[in-house]
């Protein structure tokens, strides 16, 4: 088969481009350590979240020095807890599920973004910095009230976290 020399050049450049893209993504994974939402958690019964010790009471919990876990339930049409309150400069692992239909969980303008699928638990770990207020949106259509579904992520100072934590626990 006859292929023009210029076309061979372009073919080679195209393959270089593809390898460059794959290389960038791989660099992101091993350099800055970006990890994907995966199947790390077992499936759960979405109709019986009240029997699950994580999601019966959605909350933020300290699990290590400067390490926190947030158990978040998405539902038509909101997130629980809201706001999610975490202390500054900490590592936060979010476990997110849905108790009804498929939702999205996106901290607007950041890289924290995942699907919330009933029966599945999405796990994402992020490092938060300075105190700041972020908005959370549901970015998957979930029913007629979808556009009203929002939440908040509050990164607060150590002191505020201590006092809020004390006030929140029922």
């Amino acid at each position: 088969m006859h292929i023009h020399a210029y076309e061979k050049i372009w073919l080679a450049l195209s393959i270089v481009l593809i390898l460059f893209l794959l290389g960038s993504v791989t660099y992101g994974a091993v350099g800055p350590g970006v990890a994907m939402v995966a199947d790390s958690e077992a499936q759960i019964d979405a109709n019986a979240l009240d029997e699950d010790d994580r999601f019966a009471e959605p909350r933020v919990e300290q699990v290590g020095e400067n390490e926190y876990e947030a158990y978040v339930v998405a539902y038509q049409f909101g997130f629980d807890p809201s706001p999610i309150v975490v202390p500054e400069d900490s590592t936060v692992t979010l476990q997110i599920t849905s108790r009804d239909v498929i939702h999205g969980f996106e901290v607007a303008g950041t890289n924290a973004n995942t699907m919330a699928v009933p029966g599945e638990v999405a796990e994402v770990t992020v490092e938060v910095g300075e105190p700041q207020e972020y908005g959370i949106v549901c970015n998957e259509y979930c029913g007629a009230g979808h556009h009203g579904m929002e939440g908040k992520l509050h990164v607060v100072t150590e002191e505020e976290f201590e006092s809020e934590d004390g006030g929140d626990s029922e």
Partner: protein
Amino acid sequence: MSDALEAEETFLDRYPAEAKIVRSAFLGSFLALTLGAIFGIIQTLHRTGIFRGIIDSSDYYTVLTAHGVFLVISFTVFFLVGLFTWAVVRSLDRPLVNIKITWTWYLLMAGGMTMTGISILAGFVDAIDMSADVLYTFYAPLQAHPLFYTGLAVFIVGSWLAGADWFRTWLAWREENPNERIPLQTFMVLTTMIMWYIASSAVAASVLIFLLPWSLGLIESVNPTLTRTLFWFFGHPVVYFWLMPAYLLWYTVLPSIAGGRLFSDPLARVVFVLFLLLSTPVGIHHQYLDPGIAEGFKFISMTNTMFLLLPSLLTAFTVVASVEYGARQRGGTGVFGWLRLLPWRDPAFTGMMLAGLMFAAGGFSGMVNAGMNVNYMIHNTIWVPGHFHLTVGTAVALTFMAATYWLWPQITNKPIYSSQIGLFQVVLWFIGMALMSNAMHAQGLLGVPRRTAEPEYSGFDYPVAFGGFEELNVQIAIGGTLLFLSTVLFIGNLVLTMGNPRVSGIAETLRPALSGPDDAPEVLDDLRIWVGIAVTLVVLAYALPLAAIINDGGLLGPGVGTYPVWIDAAVGTLADVAVPAAWSLVDALAFLGFRLLDAAASGVVA
């Protein structure tokens, strides 16, 4: 070649029965385009907050479902079946085996789409207990009315019969022409249809095994991850199903319109084979942020997706080179000077070239979508619709409209009412889309979600960048309005064209490739090999993820409720009565629909 003979005759002269089916398919397609455009303008004004007086925000999702389904299923696929019928008959230079079979699949597709359309539009009428506000992706456990799924299944079966019709016609041709290479256009149709059979089998299984029985109450629940994965098994290759007719036009029609010739027939075949092989084992890239799917499967899907860039990049070269050849023939010189000698006043040429240019831009945002981890930044933001309005919304839609200016006279013997309006229309589409899509990409980077009636929130503001949320909304609304006007001009021009008298002497020929099929290795035409490899790749990409999903969550899910969008809890029992009643209504409407389409089709002939 038979080209000399063909030059005297249009497609209508030579194959009147086939021309009628092509016209009917195009009319179905343009009806869907009209509806889609009306829903599009409502949506663009509502979402951006420019004007929210037409619908309630809760009805926005009915509009969105209708916009999506009518445009990406009816408009694209009806155009495809018309174009492919034309391409097969033209390139084999032989009639279809049995036109009754042809009308059967046409009516199945039209009937299926009518059912699905009714189930969606019923969502506007509170008195009717029927709705399919589940958007084009119909993710369970949101549940549409059974009619929605039934219509989709009938539509897909119709498309399978269409493919069988073209295969049969090709086999008959092969009997008559042993040892000849498959003509390029037929080759493109056959490879595309093989891809379609593989891809649509998954969504058909999802609908027939799970979603339809579930919506009828025969099974309790479904596994949302499983049905979602089966959807995307189909959902990515379907974008190539939209795109391949545009590629067929770029490869086989555009060079002739430009006064050039296809640069390389063998490479065109290679490109279509690559699409057949790589289109399907990539669907998981739509699920990068799904829990319940291991990272390794996502990585495999990304690698396949990135290599899927290759056939498109090769196409860019081959198509531009074919056009450049035309310009050089006219005496074009210089590295870029030849561009001036192209037939820019021809709406068919300019439309397709602008569509190709937009596709190049869409190629970039597609690379970002394909990048596994960068997906965190743009997943389910309005960046994504920004991307596919460049690809299906322009590369495909604008190519179809542009091609219509060239093809419609060939199937009706009526010259286009106004080429100038046509030229203005395609340029207007380009400008409108440039504005709208660019602003959508930028809003996506701010974190603005897709698929929402009101993207502004009470608890927070978006970061101020790229001009800011509000200014970008205005750009989207202006762009969307221009696109609507462009569609109105297209449809108007076509309606006026139908009023033109028939003339003779408007036949167009397609010129053979510079490097013809004889340069292509024989193995390219051995479709069985490619079917085998394509199926193997799909099995490699999907067997383990599907097994894992079923193993983890079960066929019917780990315990997930049912959330019908079509029954208020209070009137649940009423639905038992309403469903059979609605069915008979639908049968009647569908029948009426067929008759109308048929009448419209004969009207064009008369």
